[in-house]
């Protein structure tokens, strides 16, 4: 993992420093730019007068100490910015993952058990729809229908206007208000989370459904399932204990890999829903060529992605008794 991160920081560094944009001009005002001594002093202060390899080593040295540099756009330390925006995205990603698993697995099971039945066709159609629809368009439609037309759910933002942020514990409003017993805020934050969470989950639902369906189909024709049926176990026991347990392993792999799609989806979802998270921060950093923050965001997201996939590897051990015994 460490070599991977170092390599990625190198790529991010090369990409961000091989473009025509000049960070000096972005930082200094027009008048300061005309004074060569100020420009030289600025370059020296930020180490921009050094050759690129040396600049990269400096970046790495700071990175190890947890210093990601200062954002050109917000003039704040990047690590601080990330700490502020991450909880909002985490809340959204957790919601989307829960919805994705909670709907995707039952959908997949239902469709595999009734293969070629109308249930199967409907589920397959819906999951294909989920995989194929542009997230940003779904967000727009969802906002129009449920917020603008029907008024069932609130519009963009994390809380109703007029409500104060809950006391900061995790930065995730739902958890914070739950922990501090602030019920009005809890209800409001959950309601605000619904639309973006569901929209972000749409891709996930589709993927999980398709994966569960295909691995269930494979498992259902296995010998041990036939044995279980043969010895007269109830249908439900066979499906949920004998088949699903085995079918979940490939599904978990896909869940981990698809987490990357969730992260990509946050950029678009957060833009549509004005959700102050990492995705929107990444977008704003990219369009303003704020390289320290772009590098920070990329590294953070890559680290999260790698960690999630490590965690799914560990989940195998929980799901598969054979691995549990082997690791002991």
């Amino acid at each position, binding site marked *: 993992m460490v*070599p*991977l991160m170092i*390599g*990625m920081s190198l*790529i*991010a560094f090369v*990409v*961000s420093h091989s*473009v025509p*944009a000049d960070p000096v001009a972005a930082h200094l005002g027009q008048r300061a730019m005309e004074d060569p001594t100020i420009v030289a002093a600025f370059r020296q202060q930020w180490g921009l007068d050094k050759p690129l390899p040396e600049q990269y080593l400096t970046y790495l040295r700071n990175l190890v100490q947890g210093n990601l540099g200062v954002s050109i756009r917000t003039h704040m330390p990047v690590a601080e910015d990330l700490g502020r925006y991450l909880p909002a995205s985490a809340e959204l990603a957790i919601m989307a993952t829960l919805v994705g698993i909670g709907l995707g697995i039952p959908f997949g099971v239902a469709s595999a058990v009734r293969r070629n039945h109308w249930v199967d066709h409907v589920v397959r159609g819906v999951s*294909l*729809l989920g*995989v*194929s*629809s*542009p*997230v*940003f*368009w779904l967000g*727009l*439609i969802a*906002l*129009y229908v449920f917020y*603008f037309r029907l008024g069932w759910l609130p519009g963009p933002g994390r809380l109703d206007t007029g409500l104060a942020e809950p006391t900061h514990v995790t930065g995730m409003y739902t958890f914070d208000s739950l922990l501090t017993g602030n019920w009005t805020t809890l209800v409001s934050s959950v309601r605000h989370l619904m639309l973006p969470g569901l929209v972000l989950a749409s891709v996930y639902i589709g*993927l999980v459904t*398709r*994966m569960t369906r*295909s*691995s269930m*189909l*494979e498992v259902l024709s296995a010998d041990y399932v036939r044995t279980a049926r043969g010895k007269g176990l109830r249908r439900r026991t066979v499906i949920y204990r004998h088949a699903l347990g085995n079918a979940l392993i*490939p599904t978990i792999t*896909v869940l981990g890999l698809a987490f*990357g799609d969730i*992260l*990509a989806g946050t*950029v*678009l979802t957060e*833009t*549509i829903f004005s959700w102050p998270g990492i995705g929107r921060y*990444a*977008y704003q950093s*990219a*369009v303003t*060529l704020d390289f320290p923050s*772009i590098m920070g*965001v*990329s590294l953070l*997201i*890559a680290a999260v*992605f*790698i960690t999630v996939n490590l965690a799914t590897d560990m989940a195998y051990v929980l799901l598969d008794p054979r691995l549990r015994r082997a690791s002991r």
Partner: protein
Amino acid sequence: MALSDAALASAPPLPAMPPDTVLLRGRPTSRRAAVVKFCRRNPLVLGGALVVLAWVAVSVAAPVIAPYGPLTQKVVDRLQAPGAAHPFGTDALGRDILSRVLYGGRISLPVGFLVVSVSLVIGGLIGAIAGFGPGWADGLLMRFTDMVMAFPIIILAMTIAAALGPGLEHTMIALVAVSWPRYARVMRGLVLSVKENEYVHASRALGATEPHILTRVVLPNCLAPAVVMATLDLGNAILTFSGLSFLGLGSPPPAPEWGAMVAAGTQSFDQWWVGAFPGLAILTLVMAFNFIGDGVRDALDPRLRRAV
């Protein structure tokens, strides 16, 4: 039909394929009969192919069938609801949305096609060298590929597109930069399995040079599955492209780009038609590609239903 039958027929049976590759076997039946049979068994593939063909036809014929020019502004008609004069309504500048949607395919389809083919060539070459070359080259190239793959696609693409500045060609460069690693991996897997075949050993025994074996013996036998995979990837490429263009990182404004048109829909929120129809265009096209992809995957090897 997405698959070239000649490519299908020329692919020999490949032993020990890695699980993320597509297995192809040609049977000496008549080509037309095979296609008809395939489509009858896979109505979804047929449906998807028809929708894709329809979009291709619409894009080619756009100047003839579109009722208005895609850039023609008529401010008096701004933000009109769908009606007889404008079936899909008009946008904030009074442009006819139907015409713009019809013209949109002229951007998205070629962009998707170009991005996928360039990625296939670049990724394919890197993967082929990794799979065929010495061990150190393999290690080096694949570590690099893994690193690029670990980047969140849209963030890397966004950064590159923003850094290069506005312009469709820059968006395409960004898309290629994030899509080639998948092809590199698949191509490496294919080369690794093909190069162990007896005919490869035979040509080496006959005194063929290594470059000759790679380009004349190994690569032609890897090409068919790689091209199939690239074709199936077209939908994804178009989806990612529309995401970038939604974020304003596609071609600059007046161009009738579907993603950018949905973005315009967020500006005139009360007028649902501004964003809804371009989004439907993306949805139908991407879904059609996915129908084809699903069907082809199922048909070629039932075991590979798992490889999403």
